[in-house]
């Protein structure tokens, strides 16, 4: 049995916005599945359907073996969900919030308090437990949100952009908790716009673009699927020089795939180390000066670029070419 399974799952918003345009999923238990895409690609809509918060308008999905439409209650018992922008009640304290959630999951008062205490320790919030959530930092709120999603020992955890907007230390902390939970056997469905996050955590990745899945596989498979190295050249000079450089580089031996991305030119070419000299030569002959040239093995970003035609917007470190 799959932990999460979907066929032709779709959601159309009135009048004809196809937020999710028919996707198939088959995620085995115990995996971390990374769902990669830009804002507006349909990631959140997919999560809302899989977590029973939004009715699909087409196809079906089963989570933990239960249909999300006809058996939402059974699904909710088995999943934990931390939605984008931690949804919390700021007037309560962290401890009250977790106790309340434990009670709503059917625990008695005493048991709920004990569970809250345990969870506070797990996400390192014991010291802040009796302060109101309004005073928590962004990272603390995400940790509390994660803890609230874990109250009932869910089999499957849905995390919608769990680290968006967090500083690197808070992000590391969340990644650590997620990896720990996965080691304990929890299946994780993670959406992210951070390639590093997907690369780091996910055993399998799907790239979502404009409501459809455009590529799927392990990060290694996806990177290998490019089959080339990646040479990035930044020519010096005025606007449009990148276009001219790209034109020129398409004449390289073997006519490699060349893309213009911002003010840089990306060349997908086998044995990149050997290609550097011809690239430099060809550009210099055409009177184009080079400010920067790098050679890299393909990254998930390159896969993303190849499949969608654009870079993913955000990176946690803000530092990719």
């Amino acid at each position, binding site marked *: 049995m799959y932990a999460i399974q979907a066929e032709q799952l779709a959601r159309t918003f009135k009048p004809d916005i196809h937020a999710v345009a028919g996707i198939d999923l088959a995620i085995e238990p115990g995996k971390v599945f990374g769902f990669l895409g830009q804002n507006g690609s349909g990631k959140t809509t997919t999560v809302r359907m899989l977590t029973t918060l939004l009715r699909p308008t087409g196809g079906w999905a089963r989570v933990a073996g239960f249909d999300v439409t006809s058996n939402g209650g059974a699904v909710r018992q088995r999943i934990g969900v931390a939605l984008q922008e931690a949804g919390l*009640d700021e007037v309560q304290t962290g401890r009250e919030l977790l106790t309340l959630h434990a009670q709503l999951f059917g625990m008695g008062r005493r048991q709920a308090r004990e569970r809250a205490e345990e969870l506070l320790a797990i996400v390192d919030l014991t010291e802040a437990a009796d302060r109101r959530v309004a005073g928590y930092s962004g990272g603390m709120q995400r940790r509390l949100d994660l803890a609230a999603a874990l109250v009932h020992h869910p089999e499957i955890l849905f995390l919608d952009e769990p680290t968006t907007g967090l500083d690197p230390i808070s992000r590391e902390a969340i990644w650590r908790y997620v990896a720990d939970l996965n080691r304990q056997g929890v299946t994780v469905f993670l959406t992210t716009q951070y390639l590093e996050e997907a690369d780091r955590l996910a055993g399998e990745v799907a790239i979502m673009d404009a409501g459809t899945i455009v590529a799927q596989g392990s990060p290694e498979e996806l990177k290998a699927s490019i089959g080339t190295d990646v040479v990035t050249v930044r020519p010096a000079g005025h606007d449009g020089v990148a276009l001219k450089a790209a034109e020129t580089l398409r004449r390289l031996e073997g006519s490699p795939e060349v893309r213009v991305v911002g003010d840089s030119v990306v060349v997908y070419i086998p044995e990149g180390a050997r290609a550097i000299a011809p690239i430099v030569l060809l550009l210099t002959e055409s009177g184009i000066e080079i400010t920067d040239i790098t050679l890299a093995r393909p990254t998930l970003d390159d896969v993303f670029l190849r499949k969608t035609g654009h870079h993913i917007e955000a990176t946690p470190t803000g530092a990719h070419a």
Partner: protein
Amino acid sequence: MRLFRDSGILMLRSLRESMRQPAIEIGNLFIPLFFFAVTVGAISSISEQAFGVSNFTGFQLPVAMLQAIAGSAVAGAGIVNDIQKGYFDKLALTPTPRPALVLGRMLADAVRAVVLVGVIIAVGILTGAGMESGPLGALLLLVIAAAFSLSYTGFAVSLALKTGSNQAVQLSFLLFFPLLFLAPAFAPKEVFSGWLEFLATINPVTYILEGSRSLVLNGWEPDRLLKAFAAIAGIAAVTISMTVWAYRTRKV
């Protein structure tokens, strides 16, 4: 069973919220008491000659009550806040019965209404409003307060669920004020001019006001009390239907 238990848990959460924002509750108490004092001060000396009400303090007490109940009806605003913060989704992801999410906040309104009305009755008695129906009558006033609060707050709750917008919820206050003042708030209905008397006659708030007033001024008048509860039931029938409809057709 789950519904009652979880509604109770969520009610306590909502009450905890008010305890932490005491200024709001003080405002909810101050406004009706202020109007009560000012109106009684201005009109009580002439109310006997003008329209034959000798105990104008007692006559005004239910008006202050209804104002306090309307002021403490914050379930709608609370739900809007939960929706906008994303916390409503979080609650909706627990196995709690859906109606508990709404009922918990509505019950908290009723509790707040009972507390505020209790204070207002005490102030009324201290300032000479009297209570012809005795302690049991005062108790019945609290029951009326709880029942009216639940039926009235449902209106804002349905708008909150349907729109998730604060502006829409503010509308419910706009609705209440005409209802209160198209009822015999300052003078008996008998002295109203024709069109106003007609509007007051079809306004359910009139009967809630007159029923509550009868307990303060006259003692036990079953027909008036029956009409008051019928009016509350009527309002409840409308607001409950609206709430159910809003939940079913909620845009997500």
